[in-house]
């Protein structure tokens, strides 16, 4: 971990969204970079979504499909004129199919400094229960 942190960051262009279906609203849409990891109890999704405010972020889980959709308001003021544009701003959209059964009522989402942290706890696996037969 320590050696990966000291390396120099390279420019990574934002990945434009490529889906079969078209977006309803025009404008660029990007797929956010994510980290997904799993422990025995939960799945955690970390997504880089700079510029997204909590109220503009939609997280949806149905039929094992997790959808992350974030709207970005352009940070520029009305009178500003562009001089140099190296990156574009736009929506973020990404979907994942989850294989594990998720406890939908206990999902926890946290958005801080443009990074979404989504905690998806797994439903505890059914523990085998021994039934004692009483002898009458």
């Amino acid at each position: 971990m320590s050696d990966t942190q000291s390396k120099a960051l390279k420019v990574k262009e934002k990945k434009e969204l490529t889906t079969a279906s078209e977006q309803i609203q025009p404008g660029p849409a990007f797929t956010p970079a994510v980290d997904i990891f799993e422990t025995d109890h939960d799945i955690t999704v970390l997504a880089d979504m700079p510029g997204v405010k909590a109220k503009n972020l939609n997280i949806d889980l149905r039929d094992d499909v997790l959808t992350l959709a974030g709207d970005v308001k352009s940070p520029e003021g009305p009178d500003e004129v562009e001089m140099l544009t190296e990156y574009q701003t736009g929506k973020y959209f990404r979907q994942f199919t989850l294989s594990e059964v998720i406890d939908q009522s206990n999902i926890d989402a946290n958005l801080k400094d443009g990074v979404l942290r989504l905690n998806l706890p797994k439903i505890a696996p059914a523990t085998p229960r021994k039934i004692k037969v009483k002898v009458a």
Partner: protein
Amino acid sequence: MIMRRISSWPKWETRSPFEDVDLMRREINRLFGGLADSTFRGPSAGVFPLLNITEDNNNYYARAELPGTKTDELDISITGNSLSIAGERKIPSENESANYHRREREAGKFSRITTLPGQVDTAKSEARCVDGILTIVLPKAESAKPKQITVKTS
């Protein structure tokens, strides 16, 4: 009979191995060519972080997307009309028992220097990080501000 059947088989031997390579290359070109048409190709210095610079009458604004970076991890300085941004993006390590499915987010150090389009008032410049977007507001020096010239009619 047997000979005829053999001769009607697809002729693997005669097919050049380069044909496959050529097909693959065409396929790649199609894929990436299609991408290049739709993706944005702005002027980029190729140095992290990418910057967007705008201006209005009073200020220049420099913006960069730095999700998860705190202001105290950034080192921003202005000398004359060159702006330098340096820092380190840290991704805290997770639980030891975590098994990764995907790891696309990257951590690392960065430093960039860029020339501003005009002279700025360095004393009044300020930077803030909101929702992972760094905004540096650089008030223009008096000499760089636009001057309205009124035409007098006699």
